């Protein structure tokens, strides 16, 4: 991939590898100097094999998840790219008609090809050209009664095809278009499969003139000119097809092949496109436009606009900046022509001129526009490769975001492991310190051990991740269920390097941090097993703290001075100097905290306040949210300070402060998304990466809150459990141990909490979407079948005439016209693309699509709004796509958006005016009033409303198009609802000559629901990978607990605990910790889902919030069983320990 996590992939891989090499060099030098530390650090790994395996399994997850995300992205990118390249064959660019035709394929004169051929002769970058007709036609095998309503049909000029691409039959022999005799055609292998036709068979093709039979001369291998992917194709000679269609001397496309193969030809795409666009642009018109745009300060206006758009629309911003540059420097060349000939750019320019009060200039440009381009040039291959890149990056981002929770959990595990290792070895480490080991030696010792774990984990994780990614893409392919897309597993070296390095670096950083913390022990405390309070160090005097802070502000200078003076080890200071980008801010912060002493709440307070102010002034949601959370934390920290001053009992003070810190942070992070809307301007969306960050903050706050109130928790649990006489003693110890080790318990609870939190959100949101099960008519409009026909083969006369109308309740048609729309008086006054669907009255009178918003002036119910359209031709309703959604994952939608309605607005709206005109025309616009917006659900299922769509009465379509527009879409409501699937097939047969493609809407809805559920489950499964870490953590925790508590086990056995009671105690203990995590996760998951639901329900009327009890039950069950299984072995070991042996243990 070109970009990973928003950074250039190759450079990232290189940077990470260099970073790793540096890390290993530093470790290597350290190891060579003090090999004894390596020995001390590594000896425990083989000694405790089970524990080491558990640690590696837990640690590998970050590498595995990153590797999976990148692998899926790589495979998707490679597959999309392969399909595109296979589909296009040698074709790099496609030249098409000027785009003025509204319906059907746009033909142009063969003479245009001759012109292009002539001008291309001098261009070395162009290797070959091929004129052809490419359209969709129905075809059938009459013998077996098989039909395909959408067969791709190519009419290829044999004079050029031999030079362009080789056609091979299934036996691998080369065949030629020129060899085709009259009434002979080739079909590709997919056509052969679909219609069960072979060489020598007859195939029927349907055109406007009727049905024609042809002899299949041969079956060709798929790919390139014979049609790539899995699309069925028929190949005619150009003359034969022209004659068949009555389009003598006309073609639809010119395929262009660049010089060279693969990447070489791809590199030439930009130059060739520029060249062709320049050649196919009317230079006189372009010159006139250039002259107009040079004047009236327009270049400056464009530059200002470009700066304004930098954040929101990078692509347009760059285009405007380039155009401004060409105009300012009076550079009328290929680059200017390429930009100005792009139709969307013209629309953008017109909008800007209009907005700037330069209507006269806008009018001139608008008038010149239709004559500017003779033919359009599509940078097809390059676009496909770009698309592959975009899709792959999107997929990687989605998987990375879902996986980030597990990565966080993985990092917590590393931390936990080191907390446990440090605790287990505290006496040993204290002794080591007593006999002369320095603190940094302990850091090194732990780092060596951790690096070995991290290295093993990164290898295992990357391998597992690669395997997982391949597995998941195959599941994805199954879910997408498309014949046109073949998944080819692929993993690039760059991705491999990134996943291995990033996993290892993440683990390593956590290891060093944990090692630093673990090394921070007091020798006496460690040896005697005392509490830290016994040897609390007196705080440094203020003067020393101020001096430290001052030095840290000029950290690099300090390091240089120390290196020169030789203070504190030159090598160490040099390494720290090298790491100054990381160490400098950390040192400033820590010394600032130290300087502020008891008033340390002031630091987060100041930072939070700055973020809040910056968030409000720049309207940035992320800054505001973090500022708000920080402020909440500051209040908590201030209360902690007050408690330390006024409450003597330390534990009570901590409980009050912890409750407030956790509680306030949790509340501030759980406010409804529009909570502050009534007091301040709309803030920008924080972006998808804020989700895992917010989740982590909420989880940390909830765990902090919980662990600050262990006293209450123990009291409640003891009260409940004291009722079970058999378990009283066991539960008492099972609860007391984890509650006493708050830190490690909190970490483990946080791990489970984080994962359960994500899984819960999936479960609950999945339930909300199920509104379509109860009310399918909100998606289908109440119709059973939707059918489309090939626009070139319209149904003549009334469709109802060909049907037995007693079978139907409603039959209604619609026409589709591509239009351009802008707001009449709103902010969005640049023409943008949209679709106008003009509907017969039968549809308007019967549809059950519901409105998300409507203007009450036009009716009080959805039905009345639809009926209002029938009485006034200037009224339209739009689909919800016109409301900006800020969907971070979807492809960029450049179609019309309104500035009058925002996502989450209430149902009543004020109608607003728009101007609509035929696409690519300078005709006068028609002013229309948008009186309603149908809900997003309604445009969900196959209604082709991927961009902005307006719905109007039938007459408006022809009026806007200024020509008759045939009906091309039909909705059928059957009397016998159960017969939709069969009737679809029947309709396809009846209207085969029109290329009808009919689908049962309920069937499709069901398929989409199944696919959506499967996707949800897939993401749920992927997110749930973190549970493996949680379970590994429980395992590690249990193993450590058994070792640490050997003597206690002996005592318990001595006072009468049976071995089964010891086992039960350990199992209850791990289940209890797991349950706490599940509790935190479920509460947070429900809370977060509720907030999301509040947003969804604003647009999805009737949506019900429900917690899927069954699913949650299964989730709890699986998690607890897995935790119990992970602790069964250590629990058994504990129960089998002989009491005397346990009591002897030290």
């Amino acid at each position, binding site marked *: 991939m070109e970009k990973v996590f928003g950074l250039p992939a190759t450079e990232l891989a290189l940077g990470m590898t260099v970073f790793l090499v540096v890390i290993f060099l530093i470790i290597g030098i350290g190891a060579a100097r003090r090999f004894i530390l390596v020995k001390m650090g590594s000896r425990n790994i083989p000694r405790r094999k089970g524990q080491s395996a558990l640690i590696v399994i837990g640690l590998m997850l970050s590498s595995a998840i990153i590797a999976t995300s990148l692998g899926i992205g790589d495979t998707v990118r490679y597959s999309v790219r392969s399909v595109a390249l296979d589909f296009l064959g040698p074709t790099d660019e496609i030249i098409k008609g000027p785009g003025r035709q509204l319906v059907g394929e746009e033909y142009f004169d063969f003479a245009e090809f001759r012109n292009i051929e002539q001008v291309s002769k001098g261009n070395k970058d162009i290797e070959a050209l091929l004129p052809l007709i490419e359209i969709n036609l129905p075809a059938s095998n009459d013998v077996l009664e098989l039909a395909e309503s959408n067969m791709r049909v190519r009419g290829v000029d044999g004079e050029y095809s031999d030079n362009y691409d080789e056609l091979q039959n299934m036996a691998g022999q080369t065949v030629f278009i020129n060899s085709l005799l009259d009434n002979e055609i080739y079909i590709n292998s997919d056509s052969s499969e679909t219609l069960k036709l072979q060489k020598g068979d007859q195939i029927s093709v349907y055109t406007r003139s009727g049905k024609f039979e042809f002899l299949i001369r041969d079956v060709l291998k798929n790919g390139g000119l014979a049609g790539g992917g899995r699309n069925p194709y028929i190949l005619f000679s150009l003359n034969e097809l022209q004659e068949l269609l009555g389009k003598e001397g006309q073609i639809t496309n010119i395929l262009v092949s660049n010089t060279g193969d693969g990447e070489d030809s791809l590199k030439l795409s930009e130059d060739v496109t520029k060249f062709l666009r320049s050649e196919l642009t009317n230079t006189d018109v372009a010159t006139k436009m250039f002259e107009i745009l040079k004047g009236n300060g327009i270049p400056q206006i464009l530059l200002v606009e470009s700066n304004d758009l930098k954040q929101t629309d990078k692509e347009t911003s760059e285009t405007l900046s380039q155009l401004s540059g060409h105009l300012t420097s009076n550079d009328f060349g290929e680059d200017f022509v390429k930009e100005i000939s792009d139709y969307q750019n013209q629309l953008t320019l017109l909008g800007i001129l209009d907005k700037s009060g330069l209507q006269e200039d806008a009018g001139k440009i608008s008038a010149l526009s239709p004559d500017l381009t003779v033919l359009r040039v599509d940078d097809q291959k390059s676009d496909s490769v770009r698309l592959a890149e975009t899709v792959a990056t999107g997929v990687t981002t989605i998987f990375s975001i879902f996986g980030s929770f597990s990565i966080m959990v993985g990092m917590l595990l590393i931390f936990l492991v080191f907390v446990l290792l440090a605790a287990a070895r505290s006496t040993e480490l204290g002794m080591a310190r007593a006999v002369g080991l320095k603190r940094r030696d302990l850091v090194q010792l732990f780092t060596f051990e951790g690096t070995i774990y991290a290295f093993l984990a990164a290898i295992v994780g990357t391998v597992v991740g690669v395997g997982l990614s391949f597995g998941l893409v195959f599941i994805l392919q199954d879910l997408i269920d498309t014949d046109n897309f073949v998944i080819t597993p692929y993993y690039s070296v760059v991705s491999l390097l990134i996943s291995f390095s990033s996993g290892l670096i993440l683990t390593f950083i956590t290891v060093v941090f944990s090692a630093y913390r673990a090394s921070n022990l007091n020798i006496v405390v460690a040896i005697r097993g005392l*509490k830290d309070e016994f040897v609390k160090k007196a705080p440094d005097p203020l003067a020393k703290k101020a001096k430290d802070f001052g030095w840290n502000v000029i950290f690099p200078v300090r390091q240089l001075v120390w290196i020169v003076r030789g203070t504190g080890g030159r090598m160490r200071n040099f390494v720290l100097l090298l790491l100054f980008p990381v160490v400098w801010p950390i040192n400033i912060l820590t010394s600032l905290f130290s300087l502020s002493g008891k008033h340390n709440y002031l630091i987060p307070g100041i930072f939070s306040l700055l973020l809040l102010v910056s968030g409000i002034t720049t309207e940035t949601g992320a800054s505001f949210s973090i500022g708000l959370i920080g402020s909440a934390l500051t209040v908590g920290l201030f209360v902690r300070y007050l408690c330390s001053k006024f409450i003597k009992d330390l534990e009570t003070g901590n409980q009050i402060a912890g409750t407030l810190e956790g509680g306030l942070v949790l509340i501030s992070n759980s406010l409804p998304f529009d909570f502050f809307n009534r007091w301040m301007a709309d803030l920008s969306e924080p972006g998808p990466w804020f989700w895992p960050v917010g989740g982590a903050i909420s989880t940390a706050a909830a765990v902090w809150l919980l662990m600050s109130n262990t006293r209450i928790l123990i009291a409640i649990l*003891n009260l409940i459990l*004291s009722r079970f*006489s*058999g378990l*009283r*003693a066991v539960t*008492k*110890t099972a609860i*007391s*141990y984890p*509650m*006493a080790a708050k830190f490690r318990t909190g970490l483990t609870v946080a791990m489970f909490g984080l994962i359960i939190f994500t899984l819960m959100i999936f479960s609950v949101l999945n339930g909300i979407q199920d509104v379509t099960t109860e009310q399918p008519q909100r998606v289908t409009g109440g119709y059973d079948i939707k059918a489309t026909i090939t626009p070139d083969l319209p149904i003549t006369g009334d469709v109802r005439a060909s049907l037995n109308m007693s079978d139907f309740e409603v039959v209604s048609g619609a026409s589709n016209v591509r239009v351009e729309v802008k707001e009449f008086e709103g902010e969005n006054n640049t023409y943008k693309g949209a679709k106008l669907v003009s509907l017969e009255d039968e549809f308007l009178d019967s549809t059950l699509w519901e409105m998300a918003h409507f203007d009450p002036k036009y009716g009080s119910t959805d039905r009345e709004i639809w009926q209002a359209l029938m009485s006034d031709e200037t009224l339209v309703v739009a689909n919800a796509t016109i409301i900006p959604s800020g969907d971070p994952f979807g492809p960029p939608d450049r179609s019309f958006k309104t500035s009058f309605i925002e996502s989450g607005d209430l149902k009543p709206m004020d109608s607003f005016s728009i101007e609509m005109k035929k696409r690519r025309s300078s005709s006068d616009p028609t002013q229309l009033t948008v009186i309603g917006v149908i809900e997003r659900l309604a445009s969900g299922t196959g209604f082709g409303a991927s961009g902005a769509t307006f719905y109007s009465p039938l007459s408006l379509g022809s009026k806007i198009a200024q020509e008759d527009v045939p009906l091309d879409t039909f909705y059928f409501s059957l009397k016998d609802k159960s017969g939709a699937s069969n009737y679809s097939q029947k309709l396809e047969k009846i209207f085969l000559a029109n290329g009808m493609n009919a689908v049962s809407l309920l069937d499709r809805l069901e398929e989409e629901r199944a696919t959506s559920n499967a996707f949800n489950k897939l993401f749920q499964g992927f997110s749930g990978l973190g549970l493996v870490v949680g379970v590994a953590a429980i395992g590690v925790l249990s193993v450590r607990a058994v070792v640490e508590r050997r*003597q*206690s086990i*002996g*005592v*318990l*056995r*001595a*006072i*009468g*605990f*049976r*071995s*089964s*009671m010891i086992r039960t105690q350990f199992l209850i203990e791990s289940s209890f910790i797991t349950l706490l995590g599940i509790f935190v996760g479920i509460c947070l998951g429900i809370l977060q889902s509720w907030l999301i639901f509040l947003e969804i329900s604003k647009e999805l009327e009737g949506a019900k919030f429900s917690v899927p009890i069954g699913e949650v039950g299964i989730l709890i069950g699986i998690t607890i069983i897995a935790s119990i299984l992970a602790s069964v072995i250590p629990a058994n070991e504990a129960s089998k320990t*002989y*009491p*005397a*042996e346990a*009591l002897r243990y030290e």
Partner: protein
Amino acid sequence: MPEIVISTENLHKFYGSRDQKVHALRGLDISIEEGEIVGIMGPSGCGKTTLLNCLSGLDSFDDGNISIQGSTLTDLNDDQLSELRAKKMGFVFQTYNMLPVLTAVENVELPLLVSGFSGKEARSKALEKLAEVELEEWQHHLPGELSGGQRQRVTLARALVNDPAIVWADEPTGNLDSENERLIMDLLIQLNKENNQTFVIVTHSDYVGGRTDRIIQMKDGEVV
């Protein structure tokens, strides 16, 4: 005539693998009467703690027989041994061995909860016992917040809370100063007199030995 509550017959115990076997107990025959305070003394490694562990059912033995209040230990399975310990025995260890996560009163009530007492009953009995060892005020303190002498008194309360017939003490004053050693022994003897319980005390201390009714002197796994 006092009843014999503890007796052994030709008791043997080995440690280690086949090649390097250590004969820890070499055919011991001892008997202890009800209400007796018996000290087991001898040099380090002579088998004192091993004998105590075998007698109390905490450790297995290889040959011979042990009878506790008429029950032969070899006839009892692990669960029955646990029940025996829960109902008829109390333990005091040199290193106190309180559960660090439980408060003083919770440590004391634990044996009662094992024996099936209700939470309320267990708490009230535990408080009684704590009062007997003069630590009622410290009931809610964790072991880490108590001194060595206080911890040992809590352990004593825990050992006696279920009114056991036999109390096993392994170097109960080993970690204490002489003042605390005296206090613990006073308490122990007072309780012995009040409840007629049997005390078996492993010790190195001549002072402790001197306050017992009888001393079993051991050397190299044998009674001398």
